[in-house]
């Protein structure tokens, strides 16, 4: 062997000329390595494949003209974007390549952004500067952000768009769930614009809980909230029997009686309650607009603004129910529930009806002995440890600060900082989804409780959390589309107090503040006539034939109705035009007839509206049979000209009417005075 090497050495380097020649050849070979590597690189392979693909197509000439060989790059220094993805993804902008089966060369789906202005990694993540498939798409030791799976792609949008977008249903859903499940009671989430996500689930105060319910119910509830109500948002803490016993003991022990105290039940009232009258009153008061209840067939019927009432009789004490139905402000001044002004008989009827809605099985097997001081003390410790006061007001326990990790930048968390367990996909989306799905799978001693979410909801929440990235927090403010925050508008004065008592803003939106269940009232004073408004407040009627929800009857006194009407007619007016600027007296019979023609033929308004209950059936817009008694002509005219200008988001299309057409239609609509829906129903 040694001899062989020696002879080889002699062959190449025996004399200086030979040595020079050999060294030169070796040097040449070494120099050829880099070009050879370049020549055989992955991206060249893709460019060759692309050329092969386009040459077989009908528009080969155009496509070839667009093709540029070599490394391509989208460079935006202020965005820290250096994306070479277009080196291989060559057909992204070619409309004719939409049908190509290979993902590498297919046209990018239509999005509202230009690829060259935004780059690729801003939304898709991955390593932009890489030129091999592996490095660009997967996570490597140097690059922890792999390509985002398509189902979370809306997280990309959420970095800049803080407002809901039409095209991002899952991001919108996820953000809404984070708010409505109260995630931010424990976790702080700062939006990129510096505001914080505020929960709206409104967990009840426990300061007077003993007035409301029993220890047995509390015990069963904290063991498994969903067993009481399938729609409950309170998560499951998987408490042991002993822990639930001690927590229920403490929660009851810390409760103080309400001041002024709840009146004891009058014995005679409940005896006279007629169950059928209770069902009727529950329906007439439109309780189901906000509260769900399981009906006899096992179907959940009703809204999700208030708590489910299927088993309310098991939960609430009878005297508490009476007190609450009579005036919810007494027990909870911050409640969203209106003060209905029921008379004593109605209170007894409705409270009796609710009391009869029981789930006896829920507390049947709960038998608790009187609590010992040690148990109460242990319960208090558990309440502190589990962070109950993050959501609930509890006497003697302060709301903990930063109880759970902040999630403002969870979407950029490096994998090295995460602890994975078996069965969890080793990626950031996998980790976040697993945490949301089953937090205790990461260890039984972890504090985060189990929420009751569907797979879609888990994906949506994960999407919203992944949008909370470093890029979102640090990019220039000009990149951000700010979120529209609700205003803090509160109606003022005596009428304001009344509107607060009636909780108008739970359903109605006024000046950018309030709910979305009922029409926006910001300009109601311009829209309607005072006589109609007073009549409506006295006895609300259905305005839309196919709508289940309806304004409740609040048993208002005449003077209260006057106060409300005066206030609304004076304050809620648009500055754009005067409500009396188009007197009805000016319209001629010819105009009315012309308007009728336009209504039924040119604009086919009867498709959505009812002008005459005998002939029309349109179910979408409000019935207009009595529009002449309800609206002001100027409002109708301006509405016809541009509905969205008066109420943004209304679905009535802008028909681009001429002034003459709008004037004639207004004359016709204002001539409709044949009575409301109630009169029609009577006939």
């Amino acid at each position, binding site marked *: 062997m040694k001899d062989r090497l020696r002879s080889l050495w002699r062959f190449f380097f025996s004399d200086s000329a030979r040595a020079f020649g050999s060294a030169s050849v070796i040097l040449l070979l070494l120099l050829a390595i880099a070009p050879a590597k370049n020549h055989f690189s992955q991206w060249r392979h893709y460019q060759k494949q692309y050329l092969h693909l386009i040459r077989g197509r009908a528009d080969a000439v155009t496509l070839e003209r667009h093709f540029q060989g070599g490394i391509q790059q989208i460079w935006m220094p202020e965005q820290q974007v250096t994306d070479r993805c277009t080196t291989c993804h060559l057909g992204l902008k070619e409309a004719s390549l939409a049908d190509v089966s290979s993902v590498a060369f297919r046209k990018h789906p239509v999005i509202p952004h230009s690829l060259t202005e935004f780059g690729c990694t801003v939304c898709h993540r991955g390593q932009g500067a890489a030129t091999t498939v592996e490095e660009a798409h997967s996570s490597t030791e140097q690059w922890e952000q792999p390509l985002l799976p398509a189902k979370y792609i809306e997280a990309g949008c959420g970095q800049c768009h803080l407002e809901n977008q039409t*095209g991002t249903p899952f991001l919108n859903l996820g953000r809404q769930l984070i708010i409505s499940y109260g995630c931010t009671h424990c976790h702080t989430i700062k939006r990129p614009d510096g505001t914080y996500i505020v929960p709206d689930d409104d967990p009840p105060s426990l300061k007077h809980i003993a007035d409301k319910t029993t220890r047995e119910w509390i015990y069963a509830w904290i063991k498994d909230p969903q067993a009481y109500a399938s729609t409950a948002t309170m998560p499951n803490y998987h408490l042991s029997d002993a822990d639930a016993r001690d927590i229920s003991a403490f929660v009851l022990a810390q409760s103080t009686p309400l001041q002024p105290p709840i009146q004891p039940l009058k014995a005679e009232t409940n005896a006279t309650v007629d169950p059928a009258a209770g069902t009727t009153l529950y329906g007439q008061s439109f309780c189901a607009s906000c509260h769900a209840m399981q009906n006899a067939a096992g179907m959940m019927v009703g809204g999700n603004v208030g708590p489910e009432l299927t088993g309310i009789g098991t939960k609430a004490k009878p005297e508490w129910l009476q007190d609450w139905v009579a005036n919810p402000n007494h027990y909870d001044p911050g409640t969203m529930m209106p003060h209905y002004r029921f008379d004593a008989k109605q209170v007894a009827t409705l409270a009796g009806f609710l009391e009869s809605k029981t789930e006896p099985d829920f507390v049947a097997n709960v038998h608790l002995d009187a609590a010992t001081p040690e148990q109460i003390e242990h319960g208090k410790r558990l309440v502190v440890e589990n962070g109950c006061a993050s959501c609930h007001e509890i006497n003697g326990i302060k709301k903990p600060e930063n109880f759970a990790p902040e999630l403002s930048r969870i979407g950029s968390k490096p994998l090295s900082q995460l602890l994975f367990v078996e069965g969890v996909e080793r990626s950031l989306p996998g980790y976040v989804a697993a945490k949301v799905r089953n937090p205790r799978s990461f260890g039984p001693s972890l504090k985060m409780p189990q929420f009751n979410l569907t*797979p879609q909801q888990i994906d949506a929440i994960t999407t919203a959390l992944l949008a909370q990235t470093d890029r979102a927090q640090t990019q220039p403010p000009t990149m951000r589309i700010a979120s529209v925050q609700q205003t803090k508008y509160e109606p003022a004065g005596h009428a304001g107090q009344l509107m607060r008592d009636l909780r108008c803003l739970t359903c109605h939106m006024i000046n950018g503040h309030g709910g979305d269940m009922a029409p926006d009232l910001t300009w109601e004073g311009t829209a309607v006539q005072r006589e109609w408004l007073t009549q409506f407040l006295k006895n609300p009627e259905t305005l839309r034939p196919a709508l289940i929800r309806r304004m409740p009857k609040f048993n208002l006194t005449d003077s209260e109705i006057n106060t409300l009407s005066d206030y609304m007619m004076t304050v809620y007016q648009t500055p754009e035009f005067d409500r009396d600027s188009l007197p009805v007296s000016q319209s001629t019979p010819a105009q009315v007839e012309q308007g009728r023609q336009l209504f039924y033929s*040119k604009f086919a308004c009867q498709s959505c509206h009812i002008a005459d209950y005998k002939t029309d059936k349109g*179910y979408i817009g409000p019935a207009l049979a009595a529009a002449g008694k309800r609206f002001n002509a100027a409002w109708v005219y301006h509405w016809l000209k541009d509905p969205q200008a008066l109420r943004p988001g209304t679905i009535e*299309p802008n*028909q681009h009417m001429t002034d003459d057409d709008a004037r004639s239609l207004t004359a016709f609509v204002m001539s409709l005075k044949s009575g409301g829906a109630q009169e029609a129903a009577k006939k």
Partner: protein
Amino acid sequence: MKPALIAVCAVTLLVAGCSRKSKQLGSLQATATGAAIVESGGGKQIGYAGMLLDQPVVVQVNDASGSAVAGAAVYFSGPSGVSFTPAAALTDSSGQVTSAVALGQQAGRYKITARTRDASGKNITLMIDEVALGYQQTVGAQLNALYCVRCHDPESTPQRVSNMDNLSVKPHPFTEGDTLNKMSDEDLLAIISHGGPALNKSPQMPPWGYTLSKSDLAALVSYIRAVSDPPYQAAGLVYARNY
């Protein structure tokens, strides 16, 4: 000797590389076989790329006389990116298998296959179509839910009563490919933006061009194309021919 060794290695690698595709799902021990496989639910859903479909796909195995067979093995498969939970299962006592389906990362139509074996070991397959919406179609779907469904969808829900029966000229549901596929994109755009009269049709279809933006209108058209049944085939590029 050495070249031979290298050749053997190369062939082994090649075979190993190719055999990945032919790897079978863990085969189930079927206790029965059927003669036919039919869809019981979950077909023709409109979902989103990469997401779970709202409803699981349910298929049923029947015997020659058409009654359900319990214990037959059913295997699901689909284009790359489609996942099934479970991907293979035995039919339950009512002869059915239920599988949650997540569509692939690309928008478009997905054909998924459910397969079982008959007594002679021959494969019986069933094809089920699903649609995954991309960004533009999703915008269209949202706009459709807000503006269009009330008249164009004959189905009523507790939240939304269909207005279709109140119209003297019945609108076309957007899945009605037989009619809508014959209309060009331009015609659809014209009728949506200018209303029925633009194409000499009923004024009960109002104009939306002054309410929705250009990109909204394009999104609606792309949504209508995505959900049509039978599928819409674009005409493609047209070039002048040399005669």
